[in-house]
């Protein structure tokens, strides 16, 4: 005798094979058989219940099966569309004007840092205003809390410089360029290795024994991801995009002769900036996301340089210094350059910041440039040019070899390559007026979307269809409410606790 669920004894059933078949039969007439009655009494689970459970299981099974089939189908579809959308340009993505006497860009001309001050003394008060803008507690997006968010966001950038030794302590720029390892102590004695290891400035004498290039590449990219990079690519060094010379206001000029090794590869990393904060452009809140991006750049590039040194190779952490980040990012396969002059990545659009590491390690699989329709889309979109508060972004339909403007703004561009030339002086003037960065062109860009499936779908459809569709997509993007600027609601949504669950459960 067996016990049923209620603890009552039930008779053991001796069923013939045909009776067992009956139990699982769908024939309604057989449901009235004595066997069914006995079974129902025994377990209180009749054939009808079995059918219900079976139907439920079948429905779930079909649902699950449809999802499994759907997953397989979507993978196949993804691969097919990936092959169509992502294409290698098959040539150098940087088209230089034939016969143009191209010169490498000089760091002294970077508009964000030293260029304006060196060229124009009137800019200095503007810089002071830009750095110390204050706040207005009656203006949403520019209140003290918003301002604090902005300043604290970038604080690690400045803090990290003090970790880099004397070379960088006094630099005004966003750099952590560590050209000369600080081998010597203040009293002129050579530092012991243990101290250099602690300072992250020690190149381990034995090289890491990677068996294959892929193994080395995987290790480098995985480490970068661990330290905070969202996208990582590796490309050979290209001297066209290295600064011709370096500059910092305190120490003056330096050049590549000061670099203690010959870089062979550049590891390029992209860091996603917060989407919700960026929708609040051009307020202090959006600047908080930008500043945090800068801090991430400094932290991760520093850690990656130490990582490479511990592998036995020389490395320089580089942010906006040493070389031009965007061309290197294009070469490393991270994205394409948009009308606003920023890198547009497939996953995050232009909502990223870039950092890089120069190293003499070259036993890696290099990434290749890709195209996914950005250049074509930018020709018709122009949303960034339309919303730019300082009209700094060109509305030329096609990229050009030289800027349209011929004035002091030319200091901040490097002509010769085919691209969209924007007036960075106008851009900077608005920063000063605004009291922080702007980021309107990032916020409004149709490629700036959260990482959701439907945006990837739209991106792929857009990439596969011809130009007029791009104009339609641009209008749809506006109608659907994406890319607003000067939106007080966005600031309020950023600070609101709704849907945030800071405790993890509420």
């Amino acid at each position, binding site marked *: 005798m067996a016990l049923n669920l209620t603890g009552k004894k039930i008779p053991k059933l001796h069923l013939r094979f045909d009776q067992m078949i009956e139990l699982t039969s769908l024939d309604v007439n057989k449901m009235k058989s004595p066997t069914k009655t006995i079974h129902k009494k025994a377990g209180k689970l009749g054939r009808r219940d079995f059918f219900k459970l079976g139907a439920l299981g079948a*429905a779930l099974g*079909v*649902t*699950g099966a*449809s*999802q499994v089939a*759907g997953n397989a189908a979507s993978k196949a579809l993804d691969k097919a569309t990936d092959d169509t959308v992502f294409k290698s340009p098959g040539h150098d993505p940087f088209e230089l004007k034939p016969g143009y006497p191209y010169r490498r860009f000089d760091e002294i001309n970077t508009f964000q840092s030293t260029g304006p001050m060196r060229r124009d003394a009137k800019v200095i008060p503007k810089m002071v205003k830009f750095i110390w803008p204050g706040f207005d507690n009656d203006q949403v997006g520019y209140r003290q809390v918003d301002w604090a968010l902005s300043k604290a966001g970038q604080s690690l950038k400045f803090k990290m410089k003090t970790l880099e030794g004397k070379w960088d302590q006094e630099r005004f720029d966003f750099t952590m360029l560590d050209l000369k390892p600080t081998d010597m102590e203040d009293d002129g004695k050579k530092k012991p290795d243990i101290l250099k290891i602690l300072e992250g400035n020690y190149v381990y004498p034995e090289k890491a024994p990677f068996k294959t290039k892929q193994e080395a590449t995987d290790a480098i990219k995985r480490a970068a991801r661990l330290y905070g990079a969202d996208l990582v690519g590796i490309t050979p060094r290209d001297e066209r995009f290295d600064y011709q010379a370096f500059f910092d206001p305190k120490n003056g000029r330096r050049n590549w002769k000061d670099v203690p090794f010959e870089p062979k590869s550049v590891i390029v990393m992209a860091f996603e900036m917060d989407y*919700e904060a960026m929708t609040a452009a051009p307020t202090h809140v959006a600047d908080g996301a930008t500043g945090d991006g800068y801090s991430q750049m400094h932290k991760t590039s520093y850690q990656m340089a130490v990582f490479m040194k511990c592998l036995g190779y020389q490395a320089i952490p580089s942010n906006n210094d040493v070389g031009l980040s965007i061309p290197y990012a294009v070469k490393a396969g991270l994205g394409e350059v948009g009308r606003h002059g920023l890198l547009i990545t497939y996953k995050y659009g232009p909502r990223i910041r870039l950092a890089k590491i120069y190293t003499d390690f070259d036993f890696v699989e290099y990434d290749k440039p890709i195209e996914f329709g950005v250049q074509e889309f930018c020709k018709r979109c122009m949303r960034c040019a339309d919303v730019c508060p300082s009209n700094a972004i060109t509305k030329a339909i096609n990229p050009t070899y030289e800027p349209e403007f011929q004035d002091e703004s030319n200091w901040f561009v490097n002509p010769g390559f085919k691209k969209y030339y924007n007036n960075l002086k106008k851009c900077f003037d608005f920063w000063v007026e605004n009291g922080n960065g702007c980021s309107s062109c990032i916020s409004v860009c149709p490629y700036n979307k*959260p990482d*959701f*499936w*439907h945006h990837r779908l739209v991106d792929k459809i857009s990439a596969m269809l011809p130009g007029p569709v791009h104009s339609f997509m641009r209008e749809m993007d506006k*109608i*659907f*409410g*994406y890319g607003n600027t000067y939106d007080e609601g966005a600031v309020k*949504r950023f600070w609101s606790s709704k*849907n945030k669950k800071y405790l993890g459960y509420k």
Partner: protein
Amino acid sequence: MNIFSGIEILFFWLGVLTTLSVGVLFYLNRAYRFDWKSWSLSGMGVFLLIFCVAWSASSVLEGEPQAAALGLVFFGCPAVVFFLLARRLVIPGKNAEND
């Protein structure tokens, strides 16, 4: 990670909705015998309905309510139109019967 909200559970329910929709179509086919036009219209209606739910729910999840509302208009309304056309084909109205 939420259990009853979020993108994963959205796609689970989309699977359930797809299964139910296909089941309903086959059930209706037994009763009304769809022709190829009815199948096409109702099939497109089901596709757009599911796409509408997916789009709008995803937009809510990403914090873009306007995109969610516009998703209902742009994908939900055509779905309803397709269903109405399909219904008109499989269940002709009085005028059609009089013809």
